[in-house]
């Protein structure tokens, strides 16, 4: 049984099709990222799951019951808004108590006790009486988070949870969110356009493009084995280029525009002809081993990034970017040899 599933969701805004026969299943305890560029339909999907938008057609199930026709207040879910949506006229603790108060099953004292517990889970126990305007952005976010988990919802939805924070706080909150998820085991779906956020938080990433799923899988799969140019490009950190693929005696090879050839790992996706390939920037090394594919190139320019260095290399008639550990980076010579494991050169479908 899935904790949440949407089936054949279609949604139009005027003439624009935002979601096209969309299916998604989420198992209990999963932490799923809906990742994609703006306009890909991810926020609309989240709002449909929450009940804030009505789909043109399709079915939504949460915790074993159909909620398609149910208003948001009856779905027993929580949604943390990008703007946090804290009620400005209520103190932090009153905000956190709000979902319990609406449900009205517990006594006032129990509601307050649970609200305090949730506040200390997000390490804000000492600021319970403050009003939202008296809290910093990061603290407001924690209140919003406490408010989302206090009612033990069947499903926790997060809308761009880290986008309003500065870089330092974002890192802190990523750890916090992950820790909370591991402790509470709440089934969580979050929307983001930031691949690092998705990679760092989720057990599973659903990459969306133009209203449907482009690719789905663990962060590792999505990052290392993108199937399409879109996926490789969106996840970032990749060189994407075209090679001419050919086969002789069961050995596949690809030739660069200037005629240099490299071996290709055997894969069912290969067929002779032009094909787009992806090569991760970190997969490139200046110190190739015997078994690696190699090519000679010239270093055009380098950016020192601290622990790592980014090099722009002209090789094979194209430009390749390499991100390598600074102590293993070639800096003396301009002419150099670079290499990578053959299976790091990944063929992509060009859809």
């Amino acid at each position, binding site marked *: 049984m899935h904790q949440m599933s949407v089936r054949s969701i279609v949604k139009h805004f005027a003439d624009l099709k935002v979601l096209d026969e969309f299916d998604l299943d989420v198992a209990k305890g999963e932490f799923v990222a809906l990742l994609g560029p703006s306009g890909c339909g991810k926020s609309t999907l989240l709002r449909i799951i929450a*009940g*804030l*938008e*009505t789909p043109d057609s399709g079915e939504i199930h949460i915790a074993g019951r159909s909620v398609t026709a149910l*208003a948001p207040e009856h779905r027993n879910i929580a949604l943390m808004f990008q703007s946090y949506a804290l009620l400005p006229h209520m103190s932090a603790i009153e905000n956190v108590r709000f979902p319990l108060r609406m449900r009205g099953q517990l006594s006032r004292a129990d509601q307050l006790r649970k609200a305090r517990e949730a506040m200390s889970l997000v390490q804000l126990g000492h600021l319970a009486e403050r009003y939202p305007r008296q809290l910093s952005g990061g603290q407001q976010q924690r209140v919003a988070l406490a408010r989302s988990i206090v009612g033990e919802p069947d499903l926790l939805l997060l809308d761009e949870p880290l986008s309003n924070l500065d870089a330092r706080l974002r890192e802190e909150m990523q750890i916090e969110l992950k820790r909370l998820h591991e402790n509470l085991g709440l089934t969580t779906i979050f929307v983001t356009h930031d691949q690092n956020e998705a990679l760092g938080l989720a057990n599973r990433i659903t990459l969306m493009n133009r209203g449907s799923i482009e690719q789905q899988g663990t962060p590792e799969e999505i990052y290392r084995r993108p199937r399409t140019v879109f996926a490789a490009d969106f996840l970032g950190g990749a060189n994407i280029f075209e090679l001419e693929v050919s086969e002789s005696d069961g050995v596949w090879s690809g030739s660069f525009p200037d005629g240099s050839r490299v071996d290709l790992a055997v894969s069912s996706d290969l067929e002779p002809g032009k094909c787009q390939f992806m090569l991760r920037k970190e997969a490139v090394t200046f110190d190739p081993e015997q078994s690696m594919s190699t090519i000679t190139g010239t270093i055009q320019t380098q950016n020192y990034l601290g622990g790592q260095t980014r090099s722009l290399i002209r090789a094979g008639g194209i430009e390749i970017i390499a991100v390598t550990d600074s102590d293993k980076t070639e800096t003396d010579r301009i002419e150099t040899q670079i290499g990578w494991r053959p299976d790091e050169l990944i063929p992509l479908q060009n859809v």
Partner: protein
Amino acid sequence: MSAGSAQPYREPAILLTPGLLFLLLAFFFPALQLLAQSFLTFGTEPARFTLEHYAKAAVDDFYAGVGVRTFRLAMIITALCLLIGFPLAVIITRVGPALRTVLIVLIILPLMTSVVIRTFGWLVILGPGGVLSWTLQQLGVIDRGISLMHTEAGIVIAMVQVLLPFLVLTTLGSLGQIPPSLEEAARVMGAGFFRGIFHVTLPLAVPGLASGSLLVFALSISSFITPTLVGGVRLQVMAGSIYQQMTGSFDWGFGAALSMILLLSTLLLIVPYMVITSRIGGRK
């Protein structure tokens, strides 16, 4: 915004209905009744359709004179409000916060004081033996007491004070939307202080000045309290005559017809004015 319920229009409909019904009955219905009244005989049962009220207004030289005076005064008042109000609004946007608050109070406090009280103040200032006459005598400008009561100048002075806040507030609205960097940019590019104001601030303030002056014009045409008290019976304006017809002579048909003429002539002036200023202002 809020979807998810079966009838997304139900909630706003419930919220809007009481207010809309109230306005239909208490505002639009009376406005239509006024229109109807201007075409109906008054005092006969049943009322018949007639154009006699409009005919009466058209042939009577007295009302032609009143109409001309009304519009002349309104134009002078509007022009003066523009002349004073624009610099005042520009100054308000540029001074420090403390002086700004003082100036806004200077605009809002009179605006929120009853027109009858402000007019009363002007009666004391402009009247015989009033503040103005006394001051001028003390300064040696005049040797005998003067009075601006029952003069058009007196009406204009009092009305400008009554209506200036409307122009300043609407102009402030559109000045507030001009990024300060624009005029700074003009200055950097070599426009002098006055040229900066003339070429940057003024054109961008046109929408505010336009709606502000329209408001002042419409309000000054339909005012009767200040003109009647300052101008007296001899210098009647249209709104004053209408008040006279409705509450003194009880000729409602004629009063209604005068009101319609007042309203329509205002519209006739407003529409071309709006077209012209929207071209100048280059609005989106």
